[in-house]
């Protein structure tokens, strides 16, 4: 009865229906993404522990410390919220929200794997846009804007330095990253992420090894992880742009970092590692693309964590040097390569 009512409503008011469905989808997405981010934090702490010959959280919630992030979230969200007296209040308040919104924007256009129904592959994506690859890449870099808002409005010297560093770094790396996305698009003949995945009979990581490396480095920079975490270099500028943030606002910024890390690794998998492509697993063929996708993302996440614990931090001028003087020319070489190979295959 309810179903029939809904279909009737959908027939009568298609636009409103689409809007409501979109809202519901966004709500589900938001909660899923945030829980996934918590899982990523947990994963990071455990993997980091393993790589450093220690345990990581193992008290709260059994010997795997599964509830550790729950405890952290409860604590962060019930902590006093401090807004410094000299802060630019509206900007300060909005920065974490912009950060969350950014991740939602990215997540909206990003396919999260696919399921096979009746032998047909149905990608799981909220908004299947034609230029989703470019859109996602652009929206990811909006994170730097929220970081800048946070840093600038805090009225703190460390925060400000962190914000400036973030912007300088973002500008230096956005160009090679964009060029890499274009190279991929040339080879796939599409800017749609779903089509890019479907075009990868050979992984683009194999077809464009140079592009893969450049994109991976630029991605780590965009995510602000070691060795490119100059924006929140603890030993130089306390905690960078979020020095003044506390309580729930810090919690949002903190989890958004991991959100973006998750989304970034998904993007890397989609663009270069063949997305959910993989041999069909017999019995559970229905979700076998999901399994491949999940495994690939997990491997990328672990690799990011592995890089984080193994490398030292660059100085900020060395980072921008690397971006402008090495990665940008190389990405141009990669573009040429993509054009040649793409034409050949076409």
């Amino acid at each position: 009865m309810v179903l029939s009512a809904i279909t009737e409503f959908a027939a009568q008011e298609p636009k409103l229906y689409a809007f409501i469905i979109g809202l519901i989808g966004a709500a589900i997405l938001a909660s899923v993404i945030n829980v996934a981010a918590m899982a990523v934090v947990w994963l990071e702490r455990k993997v980091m522990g393993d790589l450093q010959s220690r345990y990581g959280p193992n008290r709260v919630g059994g010997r795997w410390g599964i509830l550790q992030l729950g405890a952290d979230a409860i604590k962060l969200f019930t902590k006093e919220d401090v807004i410094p007296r000299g802060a630019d209040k509206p900007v300060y308040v909005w920065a974490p929200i912009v950060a969350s919104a950014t991740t939602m924007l990215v997540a909206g256009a990003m396919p999260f794997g696919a399921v096979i129904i009746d032998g047909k592959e149905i990608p799981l994506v909220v908004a299947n846009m034609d230029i989703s690859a470019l859109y996602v890449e652009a929206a990811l870099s909006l994170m730097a804007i929220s970081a800048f808002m946070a840093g600038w409005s805090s009225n703190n010297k460390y925060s400000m330095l962190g914000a400036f560093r973030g912007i300088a770094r973002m500008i230096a790396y956005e160009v090679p990253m964009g060029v890499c996305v274009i190279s991929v698009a040339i080879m796939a003949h599409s800017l749609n992420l779903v089509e890019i995945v479907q075009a990868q009979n050979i992984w683009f990581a194999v077809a464009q090894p140079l592009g893969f490396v450049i994109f991976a480095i630029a991605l780590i920079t965009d995510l602000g992880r070691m060795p490119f975490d100059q924006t929140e270099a603890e030993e130089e500028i306390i905690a960078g742009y979020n020095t003044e943030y506390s309580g729930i606002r810090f919690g949002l910024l903190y989890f958004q970092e991991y959100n973006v890390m998750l989304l970034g690794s998904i993007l890397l998998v989609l663009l270069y590692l063949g997305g959910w492509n993989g041999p069909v697993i017999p019995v559970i063929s229905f979700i076998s693309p999901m399994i491949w996708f999940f495994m690939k993302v997990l491997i990328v996440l672990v690799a990011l964590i592995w890089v984080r614990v193994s490398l030292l931090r660059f100085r900020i001028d060395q980072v921008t040097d690397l971006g402008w003087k090495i990665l940008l020319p190389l990405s141009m070489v990669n573009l040429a390569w993509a054009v040649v190979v793409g034409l050949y295959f076409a």
Partner: protein
Amino acid sequence: MVLKNLKMTLKRSMSGVEVTRLYPEKIMDLPDAERGVHVLDIRKCIGCGACARICPNDCIELVPYKRGNPLKNKKLRYPQIDYGRCMFCGLCVDDCPTDCLTMSKKFEIAGWNRDDIVYSPEDIAVGMYTDQELAELAEEAKKAEEEKKRKAAEAAKAKKAKAAKAAEEGEKGSGEKAAKKSEGETG
């Protein structure tokens, strides 16, 4: 390049060597020389206060405590240690003349209040006397006291007798020297 770093972390992770000391469950083996919380062998302590004098931090104080040996430690005063100030240097242990103060391997002494970490003799002592033993000791002490008194009285008597004898002798013969000697003895 940075490949060696990556290799190093991976190698450590794969080697699976456990280095974490799982403290609340397992306490690591501490050496015999470990300087932890003090242990006071109350049967040996003579209450001389050498530990209190040597302490650079002035954290040892002698306080009355009754479960000790009244024969050895007449005033029944034993060291109380303020762990809020003790720096575990071990000078008190080195200086103890009867070796009754030693340091154990115990180290868990965190407290909720400042007073919790002031350890009275009761907290650090071993070999406390029970009530019965105390009664026996008191009796012994009494006996010893009586014995001492008796001995003292006897000695005094003997001395008197001696003096009298000497006086007699002095009266008899060479007087002054013996008189001086007896004076010196009694004095």
